């Protein structure tokens, strides 16, 4: 046996720089492998948004926008935001499931940064947002959606949407660390996400809403992201919504990431 004595491989690796980044990436790869092994976990970012698009476009399109095509142009960028924002919930649920398993004990007993397993999960789940954006764009195009601005702005819209979802997913990580069961993470997630995603101009123009709801829609950060995505993909104001989106993203990650790491340490 070559358990300890034989040294064909360096006995112990020396100190190497950028530990947290390397460890987080190694753990992100683990998340990625898990996602690839269980592709059914991607249903919420592939089939589900497609169903939303079909329902909304054909049920409401005529009433709200006068034609299904005009409605689709406004809806699709917003649904991209809704889907990716919801997609972050899986990160919280998975972490909540994972943390009870022995494998997290192992991570905690290794000389790695305390936040590495969390950063790894959040980074690995970026794939979910990419899948969501790509599948919505493909399906939207089939239904007749057309980018009216250009390739670069459209790409910028996709990246902005993914960035916001990434930052917001730290809030789900926090919930995942605090909740006792995966079901609770989902419950709390839905409770927060319905007003955040539906309390926007996603389905109907804000001008048609009662004033109390319009006040909420106007301060809701998700509204800014949806407006930014619309502006970048089909035209309209861009600078303001993009700036608001970046500000909110920074604020959200600055608040929730440290809280999530702290909650993880406490739970450990």
């Amino acid at each position, binding site marked *: 046996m070559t*358990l*300890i004595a034989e040294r064909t*491989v360096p006995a112990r690796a020396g100190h190497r720089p950028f*530990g947290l980044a390397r460890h987080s990436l190694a753990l992100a790869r683990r998340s990625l492998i898990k996602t690839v092994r269980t592709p059914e976990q991607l249903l919420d970012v592939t089939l589900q948004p497609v169903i939303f698009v079909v329902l909304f476009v054909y049920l409401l399109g005529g009433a709200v926008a006068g034609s299904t095509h005009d409605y689709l142009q406004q809806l699709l960028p917003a649904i991209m935001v809704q889907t990716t924002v919801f997609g972050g919930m899986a990160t919280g649920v998975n972490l909540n499931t994972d943390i009870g398993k022995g494998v997290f004990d*192992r991570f905690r*007993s290794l*000389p*790695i940064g305390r936040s590495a397993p969390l950063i790894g999960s959040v980074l690995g789940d970026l794939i979910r947002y990419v899948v969501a954006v790509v599948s919505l764009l493909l399906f939207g195009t089939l239904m007749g959606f057309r980018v009216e601005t250009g390739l670069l702005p459209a790409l910028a819209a996709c990246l902005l949407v993914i960035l916001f979802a990434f930052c917001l997913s730290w809030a789900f990580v926090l919930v995942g660390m605090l909740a006792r069961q995966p079901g609770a993470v989902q419950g709390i997630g839905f409770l927060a996400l319905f007003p955040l995603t539906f309390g926007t101009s996603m389905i109907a123009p804000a001008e048609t809403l009662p004033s109390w709801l319009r006040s909420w829609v106007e301060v809701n950060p998700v509204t800014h992201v949806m407006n930014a995505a619309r502006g970048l993909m089909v035209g309209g104001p861009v600078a303001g919504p993009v700036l608001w989106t970046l500000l909110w993203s920074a604020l959200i990650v600055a608040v929730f990431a440290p809280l999530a790491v702290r909650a993880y340490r406490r739970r450990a």
Partner: protein
Amino acid sequence: MSYAFEAEGLVKRYGKTTALAGVDLAARTGTVLGVLGPNGAGKTTAVRILATLLRPDEGRAAVGGLDVVKHAAEVRGLIGLTGQYASVDEDLTGTQNLVLIGRLLNLRTADAKARAAELLADFDLVEAAGRPAKTYSGGMRRRLDLAASLVGRPDVIYLDEPTTGLDPAKRDDIWHVVRTLVADGATVLLTTQYLEEADALADEISVIDHGRVIAHGTPASLKSVVGGQTILVRPADHDRLSDAAAVLAAVSGHQPESPSRGVVTVPVDGDTAFTEVVKRLDVLGISVTELSLRLPSLDEVFFSLTGRHTGTEEAA
């Protein structure tokens, strides 16, 4: 005397429950400390403190002279942990699991792969290396788990009930690994519910119960406390049970017990008692369907040390 790890007066409470009520544990470098106790005795809590996963409420613990709370990061560089449940990632293959650990231990990718291949070969998992761990049998999972804790060639290895639930052949494999590790200079903390296992592997044994160490010593000294070995006889003819009991009483000088129907047992001290029993049974013409010499069970150890059985809790 240099200790690879030592713990003094560990106390850990969960609300009103006291998991550890002042536990001292220590092992010299290159030895095996067996921690013997029933479920809920506090074995896992003690291991988790020594593995930096839990902070003690009171007391202190050190690994390689480094305090587990103040120098947790450095301690993590010295230890390997194998939990009661296999702590491997089910969706990852055997190789991916081990390479991940290697990468987290700062091995370069090529080295991490080489180390993974080495360990997979050592633990007879080469054929299963490319399959997700969820397809593994219980024994294979344990082996992979053990391999994962050895990727970094730790100085101190914690094995928390590594053989619970394994069949005897698989258990022997794990025992062999433990012996190899110690021969290679590692120090092992092994928790177990089986005196036989502690006896086979440990240099010293600490018996813990209700969060306290109730006995400590070498396996030999502990066995002398609990009355060495036990002879069990099951006569083929139920009616000869009392004759068999009389033989056991005569040879051992103790009153035999009948722990289950048709069986009598008695603790014996000397090495010759067993052959003596066989002779006398033969002379009396008592044929037996079962006749064995075994170490006391954990329950019997506890009965000797505490005067009560492991199952009987004063307040559940």
